[in-house]
Protein backbone atom coordinates (compact mmCIF):
# COMPACT_ATOMS: atom_id res chain seq x y z
CA UNK A 1 0.00 0.00 0.00
CA UNK A 2 2.32 2.72 -1.30
CA UNK A 3 1.32 6.02 -2.92
CA UNK A 4 1.84 6.68 -6.60
CA UNK A 5 4.73 8.94 -7.58
CA UNK A 6 4.44 12.67 -7.18
CA UNK A 7 6.64 15.72 -7.12
CA UNK A 8 6.96 17.50 -3.80
CA UNK A 9 7.36 21.24 -3.46
CA UNK A 10 7.73 22.97 -0.13
CA UNK A 11 7.52 26.69 -0.85
CA UNK A 12 8.46 29.23 1.84
CA UNK A 13 5.97 31.88 0.85
CA UNK A 14 2.34 32.00 -0.09
CA UNK A 15 3.24 33.63 -3.39
CA UNK A 16 5.49 30.73 -4.33
CA UNK A 17 2.78 28.29 -3.37
CA UNK A 18 0.19 30.06 -5.47
CA UNK A 19 2.57 30.23 -8.41
CA UNK A 20 3.05 26.46 -8.18
CA UNK A 21 -0.69 25.90 -8.02
CA UNK A 22 -1.14 28.15 -11.03
CA UNK A 23 1.47 26.22 -12.96
CA UNK A 24 0.22 22.75 -12.14
CA UNK A 25 -3.52 23.39 -12.04
CA UNK A 26 -5.55 20.22 -11.64
CA UNK A 27 -2.43 18.11 -11.26
CA UNK A 28 -1.61 19.72 -7.93
CA UNK A 29 -2.97 19.30 -4.43
CA UNK A 30 -2.16 21.34 -1.37
CA UNK A 31 -0.58 19.30 1.41
CA UNK A 32 -1.30 20.78 4.82
CA UNK A 33 -1.78 18.29 7.69
CA UNK A 34 -2.21 15.43 5.24
CA UNK A 35 -4.22 13.37 7.70
CA UNK A 36 -6.98 12.77 5.16
CA UNK A 37 -5.10 13.23 1.91
CA UNK A 38 -2.21 10.86 2.64
CA UNK A 39 -4.40 7.80 3.44
CA UNK A 40 -6.31 8.31 0.21
CA UNK A 41 -2.96 8.50 -1.58
CA UNK A 42 -1.83 5.30 0.16
CA UNK A 43 -4.85 3.53 -1.32
CA UNK A 44 -4.11 5.31 -4.62
CA UNK A 45 -7.59 6.74 -4.62
CA UNK A 46 -5.95 10.15 -4.83
CA UNK A 47 -2.92 10.44 -7.08
CA UNK A 48 -1.87 14.05 -7.44
CA UNK A 49 1.18 14.52 -9.65
CA UNK A 50 2.31 17.48 -7.57
CA UNK A 51 2.02 18.19 -3.87
CA UNK A 52 2.37 21.78 -2.80
CA UNK A 53 3.37 21.39 0.83
CA UNK A 54 2.45 24.57 2.69
CA UNK A 55 3.80 23.50 6.08
CA UNK A 56 6.80 25.82 5.78
CA UNK A 57 4.75 28.95 5.22
CA UNK A 58 4.78 30.03 8.86
CA UNK A 59 2.34 32.97 8.73
CA UNK A 60 -0.49 30.69 7.62
CA UNK A 61 -1.11 29.20 11.06
CA UNK A 62 -2.98 32.17 12.54
CA UNK A 63 -6.19 32.02 14.52
CA UNK A 64 -7.02 35.64 15.18
CA UNK A 65 -9.92 37.92 15.89
CA UNK A 66 -10.12 40.82 13.48
CA UNK A 67 -12.91 42.96 12.14
CA UNK A 68 -15.66 41.17 14.04
CA UNK A 69 -14.54 37.76 12.76
CA UNK A 70 -12.45 34.82 13.79
CA UNK A 71 -9.91 34.29 11.02
CA UNK A 72 -8.45 30.79 10.77
CA UNK A 73 -5.34 30.33 8.67
CA UNK A 74 -4.62 27.40 6.41
CA UNK A 75 -2.14 25.84 8.83
CA UNK A 76 -4.16 26.14 12.05
CA UNK A 77 -4.24 22.59 13.45
CA UNK A 78 -7.31 21.01 15.03
CA UNK A 79 -5.65 20.76 18.43
CA UNK A 80 -5.37 24.55 18.57
CA UNK A 81 -9.13 24.68 19.11
CA UNK A 82 -9.17 22.26 22.03
CA UNK A 83 -8.49 25.25 24.23
CA UNK A 84 -10.70 28.31 23.82
CA UNK A 85 -9.42 30.30 20.81
CA UNK A 86 -11.93 33.09 21.35
CA UNK A 87 -13.91 34.24 24.39
CA UNK A 88 -17.50 33.20 24.79
CA UNK A 89 -19.83 30.62 23.37
CA UNK A 90 -18.11 30.34 19.99
CA UNK A 91 -14.79 29.34 21.52
CA UNK A 92 -16.56 26.91 23.81
CA UNK A 93 -18.35 25.27 20.90
CA UNK A 94 -15.18 25.01 18.81
CA UNK A 95 -13.37 23.40 21.73
CA UNK A 96 -16.17 20.92 22.25
CA UNK A 97 -16.10 19.97 18.59
CA UNK A 98 -12.30 19.74 18.44
CA UNK A 99 -12.30 17.06 21.12
CA UNK A 100 -14.40 14.86 18.84
CA UNK A 101 -12.09 15.03 15.84
CA UNK A 102 -10.19 11.77 15.38
CA UNK A 103 -7.43 11.32 17.99
CA UNK A 104 -4.85 13.61 19.59
CA UNK A 105 -1.95 12.87 17.18
CA UNK A 106 -4.21 13.49 14.19
CA UNK A 107 -5.53 16.67 15.79
CA UNK A 108 -2.01 17.94 16.31
CA UNK A 109 -1.28 17.65 12.61
CA UNK A 110 -4.55 17.91 10.70
CA UNK A 111 -5.81 21.40 9.93
CA UNK A 112 -9.14 23.18 10.13
CA UNK A 113 -8.91 24.48 6.59
CA UNK A 114 -7.70 21.11 5.34
CA UNK A 115 -10.88 19.52 6.64
CA UNK A 116 -12.96 22.05 4.75
CA UNK A 117 -10.96 21.55 1.58
CA UNK A 118 -11.15 17.77 1.83
CA UNK A 119 -14.91 18.01 2.51
CA UNK A 120 -15.42 14.63 4.03
CA UNK A 121 -19.16 14.17 4.57
CA UNK A 122 -18.50 13.24 8.20
CA UNK A 123 -16.14 16.12 8.96
CA UNK A 124 -17.08 18.00 12.10
CA UNK A 125 -15.59 21.28 10.86
CA UNK A 126 -17.59 21.08 7.66
CA UNK A 127 -20.87 20.87 9.54
CA UNK A 128 -19.65 23.59 11.88
CA UNK A 129 -18.75 25.87 8.98
CA UNK A 130 -22.27 25.59 7.67
CA UNK A 131 -23.85 26.26 11.06
CA UNK A 132 -21.52 29.15 11.80
CA UNK A 133 -21.90 30.86 8.42
CA UNK A 134 -18.24 30.55 7.55
CA UNK A 135 -16.72 32.26 4.56
CA UNK A 136 -13.90 30.61 2.66
CA UNK A 137 -11.13 32.87 1.50
CA UNK A 138 -9.62 31.42 -1.66
CA UNK A 139 -6.29 32.66 -2.91
CA UNK A 140 -4.85 32.21 -6.34
CA UNK A 141 -1.86 33.74 -8.07
CA UNK A 142 -3.87 36.64 -9.42
CA UNK A 143 -6.25 37.40 -6.57
CA UNK A 144 -8.70 36.40 -3.90
CA UNK A 145 -12.34 35.43 -3.73
CA UNK A 146 -14.70 34.46 -0.96
CA UNK A 147 -17.24 31.69 -0.98
CA UNK A 148 -19.97 31.26 1.62
CA UNK A 149 -20.24 27.89 3.33
CA UNK A 150 -23.61 27.27 1.75
CA UNK A 151 -22.01 27.47 -1.69
CA UNK A 152 -18.81 25.68 -0.74
CA UNK A 153 -19.90 22.05 -0.49
CA UNK A 154 -20.64 20.36 -3.78
CA UNK A 155 -21.04 16.69 -2.87
CA UNK A 156 -18.75 14.02 -1.48
CA UNK A 157 -15.16 15.30 -1.26
CA UNK A 158 -16.14 18.06 -3.60
CA UNK A 159 -16.05 21.85 -3.13
CA UNK A 160 -16.11 25.13 -5.00
CA UNK A 161 -12.31 25.22 -4.95
CA UNK A 162 -11.04 25.75 -8.49
CA UNK A 163 -7.76 24.49 -9.93
CA UNK A 164 -4.98 26.89 -9.06
CA UNK A 165 -6.71 28.00 -5.88
CA UNK A 166 -5.89 27.41 -2.27
CA UNK A 167 -8.14 27.71 0.77
CA UNK A 168 -6.06 30.33 2.53
CA UNK A 169 -8.33 31.20 5.39
CA UNK A 170 -11.73 30.50 6.86
CA UNK A 171 -13.58 33.39 8.41
CA UNK A 172 -16.18 32.84 11.11
CA UNK A 173 -18.29 35.86 11.97
CA UNK A 174 -18.25 36.50 15.72
CA UNK A 175 -21.74 35.92 17.04
CA UNK A 176 -23.74 38.26 19.26
CA UNK A 177 -23.33 37.94 23.03
CA UNK A 178 -26.76 36.31 23.21
CA UNK A 179 -25.61 33.51 20.90
CA UNK A 180 -25.13 29.94 22.09
CA UNK A 181 -23.89 26.86 20.32
CA UNK A 182 -24.39 23.13 20.64
CA UNK A 183 -22.82 20.03 19.18
CA UNK A 184 -23.59 16.33 19.34
CA UNK A 185 -22.45 13.39 17.26
CA UNK A 186 -22.67 9.62 17.31
CA UNK A 187 -19.68 7.48 16.44
CA UNK A 188 -19.19 3.82 17.20
CA UNK A 189 -15.62 4.09 18.42
CA UNK A 190 -13.75 6.95 19.98
CA UNK A 191 -12.43 9.10 17.17
CA UNK A 192 -14.41 7.44 14.40
CA UNK A 193 -16.23 9.23 11.64
CA UNK A 194 -19.66 10.01 13.01
CA UNK A 195 -22.75 8.27 11.67
CA UNK A 196 -24.63 11.51 12.30
CA UNK A 197 -23.92 14.85 13.89
CA UNK A 198 -25.58 18.17 14.54
CA UNK A 199 -24.02 21.59 15.05
CA UNK A 200 -26.43 24.30 16.15
CA UNK A 201 -26.19 27.97 16.86
CA UNK A 202 -28.94 30.31 18.02
CA UNK A 203 -29.55 33.57 19.84
CA UNK A 204 -31.63 33.65 22.98
CA UNK A 205 -33.09 37.10 23.41
CA UNK A 206 -35.89 37.86 25.83
CA UNK A 207 -36.45 34.15 26.24
CA UNK A 208 -37.03 33.63 22.52
CA UNK A 209 -34.95 31.92 19.87
CA UNK A 210 -33.56 33.97 17.02
CA UNK A 211 -31.27 33.22 14.08
CA UNK A 212 -31.21 29.49 14.70
CA UNK A 213 -28.99 27.45 12.43
CA UNK A 214 -28.79 23.68 12.50
CA UNK A 215 -26.23 21.86 10.37
CA UNK A 216 -26.31 18.10 9.95
CA UNK A 217 -23.24 16.09 9.05
CA UNK A 218 -22.28 12.50 8.46
CA UNK A 219 -25.57 11.54 6.90
CA UNK A 220 -25.04 12.18 3.21
CA UNK A 221 -22.64 13.51 0.64
CA UNK A 222 -22.19 16.87 2.34
CA UNK A 223 -23.36 18.77 5.41
CA UNK A 224 -26.81 20.29 5.10
CA UNK A 225 -28.92 22.82 6.96
CA UNK A 226 -32.08 21.60 8.63
CA UNK A 227 -34.06 24.57 7.35
CA UNK A 228 -37.51 23.40 8.38
CA UNK A 229 -36.36 22.85 11.94
CA UNK A 230 -34.61 26.21 11.94
CA UNK A 231 -37.80 27.92 10.84
CA UNK A 232 -39.79 26.12 13.49
CA UNK A 233 -37.62 27.55 16.24
CA UNK A 234 -37.66 31.14 15.04
CA UNK A 235 -39.21 33.52 17.57
CA UNK A 236 -40.31 30.72 19.88
CA UNK A 237 -39.57 30.01 23.52
CA UNK A 238 -37.27 27.00 23.63
CA UNK A 239 -39.47 24.63 25.60
CA UNK A 240 -38.44 21.03 25.81
CA UNK A 241 -41.38 20.13 23.60
CA UNK A 242 -40.34 22.66 20.98
CA UNK A 243 -36.79 21.34 20.86
CA UNK A 244 -38.10 17.80 20.48
CA UNK A 245 -40.36 18.93 17.69
CA UNK A 246 -37.49 20.71 15.97
CA UNK A 247 -35.38 17.59 16.25
CA UNK A 248 -38.15 15.45 14.82
CA UNK A 249 -38.64 17.96 12.03
CA UNK A 250 -34.95 17.90 11.16
CA UNK A 251 -35.06 14.13 11.03
CA UNK A 252 -38.21 14.04 8.94
CA UNK A 253 -36.88 16.41 6.31
CA UNK A 254 -33.32 15.19 5.99
CA UNK A 255 -32.24 12.75 3.32
CA UNK A 256 -29.79 10.35 4.94
CA UNK A 257 -27.83 7.87 2.90
CA UNK A 258 -27.47 4.19 3.55
CA UNK A 259 -24.10 2.50 3.75
CA UNK A 260 -22.67 -0.62 5.35
CA UNK A 261 -22.41 1.10 8.72
CA UNK A 262 -25.98 2.31 8.99
CA UNK A 263 -29.27 2.08 7.14
CA UNK A 264 -30.87 5.40 6.22
CA UNK A 265 -33.65 4.86 8.71
CA UNK A 266 -31.17 4.53 11.53
CA UNK A 267 -29.33 7.68 10.50
CA UNK A 268 -32.64 9.52 10.48
CA UNK A 269 -33.22 8.44 14.07
CA UNK A 270 -29.75 9.58 15.02
CA UNK A 271 -30.39 12.97 13.45
CA UNK A 272 -33.36 13.46 15.76
CA UNK A 273 -31.32 12.50 18.80
CA UNK A 274 -28.27 14.55 17.88
CA UNK A 275 -30.29 17.66 17.02
CA UNK A 276 -32.19 17.33 20.28
CA UNK A 277 -28.98 17.02 22.25
CA UNK A 278 -27.25 19.88 20.47
CA UNK A 279 -30.26 22.17 20.93
CA UNK A 280 -30.56 21.34 24.61
CA UNK A 281 -26.89 22.01 25.06
CA UNK A 282 -27.29 25.36 23.35
CA UNK A 283 -30.30 26.58 25.29
CA UNK A 284 -28.96 25.38 28.62
CA UNK A 285 -25.51 26.92 28.07
Amino acid sequence: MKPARFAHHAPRTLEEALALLATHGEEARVLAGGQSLVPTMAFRMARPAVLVDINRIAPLDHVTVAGGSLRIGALARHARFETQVVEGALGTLLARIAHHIAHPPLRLRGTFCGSLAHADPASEWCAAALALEARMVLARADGLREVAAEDWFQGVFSTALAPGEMLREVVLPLPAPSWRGGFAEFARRAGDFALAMAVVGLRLEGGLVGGARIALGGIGGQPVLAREAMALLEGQAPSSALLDEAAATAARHCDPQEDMHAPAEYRRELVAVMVKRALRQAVSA
Partner: protein
Amino acid sequence: MTEVRFTVNGTAQCVEVEPRLTLADMLREECGLTGTHLGCEHGVCGACTVLMDGLPVRSCLVFGVQAEGAEIRTVEGLAAADGTLNVLQRAFQAQHGLQCGFCTPGFLMLATWLLEQKEGVDEARLREVLASNLCRCTGYQNILAAVRVAAQEIRVWREG
Protein backbone atom coordinates in the same frame (compact mmCIF):
# COMPACT_ATOMS: atom_id res chain seq x y z
CA MET B 1 15.12 11.80 -5.48
CA THR B 2 15.24 14.43 -2.80
CA GLU B 3 17.87 14.94 -0.16
CA VAL B 4 16.54 15.16 3.38
CA ARG B 5 18.49 16.28 6.44
CA PHE B 6 17.10 15.72 9.89
CA THR B 7 18.03 14.23 13.23
CA VAL B 8 16.85 10.97 14.75
CA ASN B 9 17.29 10.47 18.46
CA GLY B 10 19.86 13.24 18.36
CA THR B 11 21.91 11.85 15.49
CA ALA B 12 22.16 13.83 12.25
CA GLN B 13 20.95 12.03 9.14
CA CYS B 14 21.16 12.81 5.46
CA VAL B 15 19.32 10.52 3.05
CA GLU B 16 18.09 10.62 -0.54
CA VAL B 17 14.51 9.50 -1.01
CA GLU B 18 11.62 9.54 -3.42
CA PRO B 19 9.03 12.05 -2.20
CA ARG B 20 6.46 9.29 -1.95
CA LEU B 21 8.44 7.42 0.70
CA THR B 22 6.68 7.87 4.02
CA LEU B 23 8.54 8.94 7.13
CA ALA B 24 7.95 5.45 8.51
CA ASP B 25 9.53 3.75 5.51
CA MET B 26 12.35 6.28 5.49
CA LEU B 27 13.19 5.57 9.12
CA ARG B 28 12.99 1.82 8.58
CA GLU B 29 14.69 1.49 5.21
CA GLU B 30 17.09 4.42 5.05
CA CYS B 31 18.01 4.78 8.72
CA GLY B 32 17.75 1.12 9.72
CA LEU B 33 15.41 2.01 12.59
CA THR B 34 12.98 -0.87 12.32
CA GLY B 35 11.48 -0.37 15.78
CA THR B 36 8.84 1.83 14.15
CA HIS B 37 6.22 -0.60 12.90
CA LEU B 38 3.58 -0.32 10.20
CA GLY B 39 0.25 -1.83 11.15
CA CYS B 40 -2.10 -0.25 8.63
CA GLU B 41 -0.38 2.45 6.54
CA HIS B 42 -3.55 4.51 6.62
CA GLY B 43 -3.34 6.30 9.91
CA VAL B 44 -5.71 4.25 12.08
CA CYS B 45 -3.63 1.87 14.18
CA GLY B 46 -0.89 4.18 15.43
CA ALA B 47 1.82 1.50 15.53
CA CYS B 48 4.07 3.86 13.53
CA THR B 49 3.78 6.76 15.99
CA VAL B 50 7.03 8.74 16.39
CA LEU B 51 7.69 12.19 17.77
CA MET B 52 8.42 14.89 15.22
CA ASP B 53 9.59 18.16 16.71
CA GLY B 54 8.14 17.03 20.01
CA LEU B 55 4.70 16.03 18.73
CA PRO B 56 3.35 12.54 18.09
CA VAL B 57 2.71 11.82 14.42
CA ARG B 58 1.58 8.79 12.48
CA SER B 59 4.76 8.35 10.50
CA CYS B 60 2.75 6.61 7.76
CA LEU B 61 0.88 9.90 7.20
CA VAL B 62 3.95 12.09 6.85
CA PHE B 63 6.28 11.92 3.90
CA GLY B 64 9.96 11.55 4.58
CA VAL B 65 10.71 14.76 2.67
CA GLN B 66 8.56 16.63 5.17
CA ALA B 67 11.04 15.75 7.90
CA GLU B 68 13.59 18.19 6.44
CA GLY B 69 15.15 19.95 9.40
CA ALA B 70 13.03 18.07 11.92
CA GLU B 71 13.99 16.40 15.16
CA ILE B 72 12.60 12.87 15.17
CA ARG B 73 12.42 10.62 18.19
CA THR B 74 11.74 6.90 17.84
CA VAL B 75 11.46 3.95 20.18
CA GLU B 76 15.15 3.23 19.71
CA GLY B 77 15.92 6.45 21.56
CA LEU B 78 14.13 5.57 24.78
CA ALA B 79 16.52 3.19 26.51
CA ALA B 80 19.98 4.16 27.68
CA ALA B 81 22.91 3.44 25.37
CA ASP B 82 23.69 0.28 27.36
CA GLY B 83 20.15 -0.94 26.83
CA THR B 84 18.81 -0.05 30.28
CA LEU B 85 15.08 0.50 29.98
CA ASN B 86 13.65 3.87 30.91
CA VAL B 87 10.87 4.34 33.45
CA LEU B 88 8.08 3.93 30.90
CA GLN B 89 9.60 0.83 29.33
CA ARG B 90 10.12 -0.68 32.77
CA ALA B 91 6.49 -0.02 33.61
CA PHE B 92 5.37 -1.77 30.43
CA GLN B 93 7.35 -4.84 31.43
CA ALA B 94 6.24 -4.80 35.06
CA GLN B 95 2.57 -4.29 34.17
CA HIS B 96 2.63 -6.79 31.27
CA GLY B 97 1.66 -4.02 28.87
CA LEU B 98 2.74 -5.96 25.81
CA GLN B 99 2.26 -9.41 24.34
CA CYS B 100 3.33 -9.72 20.71
CA GLY B 101 5.04 -6.33 20.92
CA PHE B 102 4.06 -5.10 17.48
CA CYS B 103 1.96 -2.14 18.64
CA THR B 104 4.31 -1.41 21.55
CA PRO B 105 6.67 1.14 19.93
CA GLY B 106 3.70 3.26 18.88
CA PHE B 107 2.17 3.17 22.35
CA LEU B 108 5.53 3.96 23.93
CA MET B 109 6.06 7.04 21.79
CA LEU B 110 2.49 8.22 22.25
CA ALA B 111 2.84 7.81 26.02
CA THR B 112 6.26 9.46 26.01
CA TRP B 113 4.64 12.58 24.59
CA LEU B 114 1.74 12.38 27.01
CA LEU B 115 4.04 12.14 30.02
CA GLU B 116 6.01 15.17 28.85
CA GLN B 117 2.95 17.44 28.82
CA LYS B 118 3.25 20.11 31.46
CA GLU B 119 -0.35 19.79 32.59
CA GLY B 120 0.18 16.21 33.73
CA VAL B 121 -2.06 13.20 33.16
CA ASP B 122 -5.33 12.11 34.72
CA GLU B 123 -7.50 9.09 34.00
CA ALA B 124 -9.69 10.80 31.41
CA ARG B 125 -6.76 12.23 29.51
CA LEU B 126 -4.94 8.90 29.69
CA ARG B 127 -7.82 7.11 28.00
CA GLU B 128 -8.44 9.88 25.50
CA VAL B 129 -4.85 9.85 24.33
CA LEU B 130 -4.21 6.11 24.39
CA ALA B 131 -7.44 5.51 22.44
CA SER B 132 -5.43 6.86 19.50
CA ASN B 133 -3.70 3.52 18.96
CA LEU B 134 -4.83 -0.08 18.50
CA CYS B 135 -3.56 -3.15 20.30
CA ARG B 136 -4.86 -6.59 19.41
CA CYS B 137 -3.33 -8.65 22.24
CA THR B 138 -3.67 -7.02 25.62
CA GLY B 139 -7.20 -5.68 25.90
CA TYR B 140 -5.50 -2.37 26.79
CA GLN B 141 -5.90 -2.71 30.55
CA ASN B 142 -2.21 -3.32 31.19
CA ILE B 143 -1.09 -0.65 28.74
CA LEU B 144 -3.18 1.88 30.64
CA ALA B 145 -1.77 0.54 33.90
CA ALA B 146 1.79 0.83 32.65
CA VAL B 147 1.43 4.47 31.63
CA ARG B 148 -0.39 5.25 34.88
CA VAL B 149 2.41 3.69 36.92
CA ALA B 150 5.07 5.52 34.94
CA ALA B 151 3.19 8.80 35.39
CA GLN B 152 3.02 8.20 39.13
CA GLU B 153 6.68 7.36 39.29
CA ILE B 154 7.74 10.57 37.59
CA ARG B 155 5.05 12.52 39.50
CA VAL B 156 2.93 13.79 36.68
CA TRP B 157 -0.15 11.77 37.62
CA ARG B 158 -3.19 13.71 38.74
CA GLU B 159 -6.01 11.98 40.59
CA GLY B 160 -9.19 12.72 38.62
